[in-house]
């Protein structure tokens, strides 16, 4: 058993994936892109499952939405999970849905909008996670955000907030190490790697079920945007090594969504992650792999 290393599979790479002899251990797709009732997308998913593992990563549930979970969305996710039997299912610690002023029907913000770190926000997020987990009959993974707004009345530190949702609901965490670095940079941290490593150290060791590694865009004088348009940055590799030492051989995903490079480049990034895992954990990373990773399919 080795550390599972995967890559995000996006539409422009479907043909390359089908033709590729090299395979990652698993691919992660955006759940919402496979909500169709039939057609090419579901046929592709069947082809993926025949060649490697599959993780479903959602961007639209809005787990922290006070308006609740969209029943249609959950129904489609349920059908997709039943059909594809993924290794892991994940979404974000964010909100997406709320009514506009004077309206009762919620609109979708098309983005991962930030949650306040308050007791009420925590209760809403936990309630919605339990709704989803009850429907899917299995635990999910919940990802930390890169957030561009914070709230003056935040009262819970983010690592404690995430640890608490895991403790209350039994969900695992999908720890996005790039998001930690992006948040540290945007907070003006003098040492973003150290800040991200401090975050890692503040989490319980048994709650992380997957890592995301990605790149970001940084322009002088502007916010750093977590756009997944670049190779994994050196600071993120450094935080990854630290996280491997803390959490062990957690499945790891290379995430790249915009300005996609050739498929082979993604596989090279995955290989770099594999080599780093071996370097940190030794030649037998199995001894470092948690017997029961949170959020993994039994």
């Amino acid at each position, binding site marked *: 058993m080795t550390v599972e290393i995967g890559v995000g599979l996006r539409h422009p790479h479907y043909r390359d994936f089908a033709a590729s002899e090299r395979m990652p251990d698993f691919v992660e797709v955006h759940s919402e892109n496979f909500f169709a009732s039939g057609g090419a997308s579901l046929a592709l998913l069947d082809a993926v499952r025949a060649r490697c593992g599959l993780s479903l990563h959602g961007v639209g549930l809005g787990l922290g939405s006070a308006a609740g979970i969209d029943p249609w969305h959950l129904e489609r996710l349920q059908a997709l999970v039943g059909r594809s039997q993924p290794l892991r299912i994940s979404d974000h610690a964010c909100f997406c849905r709320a009514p506009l002023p004077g309206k009762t029907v919620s609109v979708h913000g098309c983005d991962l909008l930030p949650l306040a770190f308050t007791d009420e926000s925590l209760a809403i997020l936990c309630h919605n996670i339990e709704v989803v987990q009850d429907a899917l009959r299995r635990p999910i993974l919940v990802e930390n955000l890169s957030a*561009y707004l914070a709230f003056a009345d935040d009262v819970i530190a983010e690592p404690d907030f995430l640890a608490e949702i895991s403790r209350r609901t039994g969900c695992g965490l999908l720890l996005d190490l790039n998001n930690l670095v992006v948040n540290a940079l945007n907070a003006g941290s003098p040492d973003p790697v150290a800040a991200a490593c401090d975050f890692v150290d503040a989490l319980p060791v048994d709650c992380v079920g997957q890592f995301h590694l990605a790149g970001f865009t940084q322009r002088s004088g502007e916010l750093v945007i977590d756009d997944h348009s670049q190779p994994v940055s050196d600071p993120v590799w450094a935080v990854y090594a630290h996280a491997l030492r803390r959490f062990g051989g957690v499945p790891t995903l290379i995430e790249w969504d915009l300005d996609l490079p050739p498929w082979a480049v993604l596989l090279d990034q995955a290989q770099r992650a594999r080599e780093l895992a071996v370097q940190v954990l030794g030649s037998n990373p199995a001894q470092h792999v948690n017997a029961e990773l949170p959020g993994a399919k039994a």
Partner: protein
Amino acid sequence: MIGSGREAQRQQALVAALFAPVRADAAALLPACQAAGDAQIRAAGLGAYRGNARAVAARALAAAFPVTWQLLGDAADDAAVHLWRSTPPTSGDLAQWGAAFPDWLAAQSSLREFPQLVACARLEWAVHQSEAAADALTDIDSLALLETVDAQQLVIELRPAVRLVAGVPGFVEVWQQRDLRADGQHAHAVVARPALIAEVTAVGARWHTWLAAAARGSSLAALTADLPPLLEAIDTEPETDLLSVLSIIISKGWFSRLVRIEESR
């Protein structure tokens, strides 16, 4: 709503700021969210979300309406933002968003000279829906019902991916050639998915009418009586015989099965 309402109010305020047309109005909504930091920090953060929303809306529409998007040219991005504000998405699956785009285009006075563009958008939405429709096989064995069941009691079920589109003359050719100047006469199209990819077939008005009646659940007897001299038939030859018509719609991947009326979907 979950919780006491405080977080619901915060989230509503942030979503209102996201959708506000004017940036200054959006920023004015942020104090209701209790956003931290000085005005410059808050504006930068909100700007990141508003910019991302524009980009996401544009990508979603470009994916569903690739030809219309190309034909709109530089105006496409602004069109996406206007539609996003006037008809916001209600689903986290953005592939569900865009149904209102053809009507939105039709309402733009600047586009009144280009009715083909609106029809082209309607065709693309039909293609988009067809691509995601449920799979269905052709049940050839169901044709045996022709021997045993009165045609008054039978209906034709078309495949779930079939969509019928009507527009102005030439719109099918505009879509096919991705050119508003394309010459053509066709004002009707059938969208279907014989396998994994949707296909568009230009048809005459009579075919369109006949297929629309089949889609509404008209009995086979009525459809047979109405069998027109399908002078504008797909294969150019008149098709007046039921079996010939069935043969065509089977070969095109439009036909799903014959079924008794009481068993139809």
